């Protein structure tokens, strides 16, 4: 019905100006209603520490005006929106091009720290390597880890951050209590997180869909509560500090005579450690990717995907669904644990605040946005989501437009939500919405997303 009406209006050349103005005015009114409580007033404390309201009517007027203009143009412009939507749906990055992009990207990733130094200088590059490079790679790794559970096995896990926390805390505790080096605690943290994955897996095996999501969410919170309240071991809110940093084959990154710079005859700069950390997380992320790609082509990976498609059929074919689900949980958790161990060594300090539900939500959003099951899509989504929020910190020039008090990072969540809504309208199954088969007889054809199921839990 809607397409019919739209086609008729597109066919007729006459533009209904009156109707367009009406629609635009309505949109402006809605925008005003939305803006009034959140944007029009800002609470501030004055010199005598009283709370005062500071009106920001200019900003409201600008937003309302923008909404009016956009809605008006949409109503007037003879655009067949259905067609646009279809074109957006048809736009898919095939996995073949993604392979080429992958090789190019790999070279770029390897050269990235040096490119950053080249373009921004030694001082400016720390931000680009640390806040962008390392931060994004951690989330890519977490996204790939969760992708095994959510994207391949179809089990919606909203408490993935728990495994990240288990990895981080076990690495920190092992390192500070027993004095183990980073390279020793890294595999141990992975194993412990996998163990917790199995422990969580057992009770939730019977649950599906919403119930599974809620229980995993609760599990994430339980872990956080334990971290906060078991003060003797975890230090509560104070967290754990003084976590030893990774060493380069036993050579520490410090200014001493036995430090990295002195041994290699370089001038000491903290940048060395940052670059080293960048390569560690790059390798860890690539390891996650290679293992996942290999697992997908093994019987266990196919069983995960079959489980997502139809659990009852799996059981009729003699697949032990219990152990299949547990391996998915354990493998996903293990990579989360690796990422956690890296996180604790990078920060040198961890506290429960780093493992709140918001983190789980961001990781799930990365997986969903990327296209469930697609490795490249997840990486792309992590770059957009994490890189995007970091970029907002850089947009100082917006202050010249909206006044000196304007802080773009405050609008992070708003833009985040808007981006999600837009993607969900145009690419409801994520940025990469085709499935690459794990084996082929004659010709590798990607499977259209219409047939791929999302899993029932």
């Amino acid at each position, binding site marked *: 019905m809607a397409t019919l009406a739209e086609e008729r209006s597109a066919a007729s050349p006459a533009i209904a100006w009156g109707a367009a103005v009406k629609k635009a005015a309505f949109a402006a009114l809605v925008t005003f209603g939305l803006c009034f409580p959140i944007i029009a007033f800002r609470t501030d404390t004055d010199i005598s520490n009283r709370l005062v309201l500071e009106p920001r009517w200019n900003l409201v007027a600008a937003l309302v005006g923008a909404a009016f203009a956009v809605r008006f143009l949409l109503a007037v412009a003879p655009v067949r929106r259905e067609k646009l939507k279809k074109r957006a749906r048809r736009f898919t990055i095939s996995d073949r091009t993604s392979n080429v992009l992958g090789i190019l990207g790999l070279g770029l990733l390897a050269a990235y720290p040096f490119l950053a130094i080249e373009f921004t200088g030694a001082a400016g590059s720390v931000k680009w390597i640390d806040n962008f490079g390392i931060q994004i790679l951690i989330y890519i790794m977490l996204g790939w880890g969760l992708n095994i559970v959510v994207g391949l096995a179809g089990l919606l896990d909203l408490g993935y951050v728990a495994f990240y926390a288990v990895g981080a805390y076990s690495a920190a505790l092992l390192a500070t209590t027993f004095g183990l080096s980073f390279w020793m605690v890294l595999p141990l943290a992975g194993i412990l997180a996998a163990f917790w994955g199995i422990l969580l897996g057992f009770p939730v095996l019977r649950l599906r869909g919403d119930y599974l999501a809620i229980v995993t969410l609760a599990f994430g919170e339980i872990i956080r509560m334990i971290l906060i309240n078991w003060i003797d071991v975890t230090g509560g809110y104070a967290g754990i500090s003084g976590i030893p940093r990774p060493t380069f084959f036993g050579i520490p990154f410090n200014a001493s005579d036995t430090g990295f710079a002195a041994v290699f005859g370089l001038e000491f700069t903290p940048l060395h450690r940052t670059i080293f950390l960048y390569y560690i997380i790059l390798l860890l992320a690539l390891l996650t990717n290679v293992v996942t790609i290999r697992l997908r082509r093994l019987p266990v990976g196919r069983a995960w995907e*079959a489980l997502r498609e139809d659990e009852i059929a799996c*059981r009729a*074919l003699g697949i032990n*669904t219990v152990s299949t689900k547990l391996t998915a949980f354990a493998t996903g958790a293990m990579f989360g644990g690796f990422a956690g161990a890296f996180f604790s060594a990078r920060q040198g300090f961890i506290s429960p605040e780093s493992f709140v539900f918001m983190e789980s939500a961001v990781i799930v959003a990365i997986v969903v946005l990327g296209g469930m099951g697609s490795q490249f899509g997840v990486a792309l989504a992590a770059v957009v989501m994490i890189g995007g929020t970091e970029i907002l910190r850089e947009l100082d020039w917006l202050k010249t437009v909206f006044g000196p008090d304007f802080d773009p990072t405050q609008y992070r969540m708003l833009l985040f939500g808007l981006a999600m809504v837009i993607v969900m309208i145009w690419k409801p199954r994520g940025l990469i919405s085709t499935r690459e*088969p794990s*084996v082929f007889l004659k010709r590798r054809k990607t499977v259209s997303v219409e047939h791929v199921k999302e899993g029932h839990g």
Partner: protein
Amino acid sequence: MTDGRADPLLTVDKLTMRFGGLVAVNDLSFVARRGDITALIGPNGAGKTTVFNCITGFYKPSCGRIALAFPVPATLDRIDALTGTGERWATHDGGGLFLLERMPDFQIAAKARIARTFQNIRLFSGMTVLENLIVAQHNPLMRASGFSLLGLFGSGSYVAAERAAVERAAHWLERIDIVDRADDSAGELPYGDQRRLEIARAMCTDPVLLCLDEPAAGLNPRESAQLNSLLRAIRDEDKTSILLIEHDMSVVMEISDHVVVLEYGTKIADGPPAEIRNDPKVIAAYLGVEDEEVQQAEAEVGI
């Protein structure tokens, strides 16, 4: 078995399944013989699919015994002896005796080698046709991949095992004549092909007994005829016995060697198709009876 017929493969003994107060299957006993196509028929709601779900472990029967033995048929004494020990199965020379009511569903498929299809097709629609057939060979491939550890490092034995699995899948694709569509997703196939693919997938698990739940539902006469020849080939060439539920009498009467008729969960007839066709009880169950017969029956019970 003195009557010259084949040995029993599956022995269902006093099977009863209750759902709350509803008795879906009542004291059902029958035998499916090796190399036979045994049909389970009956009006809608007679409890046929419930029997299937009990045999394949999706339901735990309320009471009764379901025993499967291969390659050597089991005598009643042996079945009784195993029942007394409390064990689930006794394996010997590549087969054994399995008490299915004690086993979980996936073990029935993996160990007792019973494969099944579903009334509403359950393919992995987002995976390709070939992948569907490879997933069916999960257990041998899992062993070949050293439970993923060897496979992860690209061991040669796994590569060879996977190639063999692909060949086996290709063989079945040729049998059901959709080899050209091997790399399409299973959800894209037309309905009739999906039905046959589900049978091929079940056959890829290398079963001794294939349970088909209404394989001819929704097929046109030509597809029905193709199905008949496929099922005969499975019986004669692959030496796999078949147990099938079917409403399409042209399929049942043409290919089955033995027919069991259920009505309201109770067995009302059991015999070769020619006998079943003329059994007054079966005709009554399917077509109803004349009014005078109803009156006669009512007079007998005194209403």
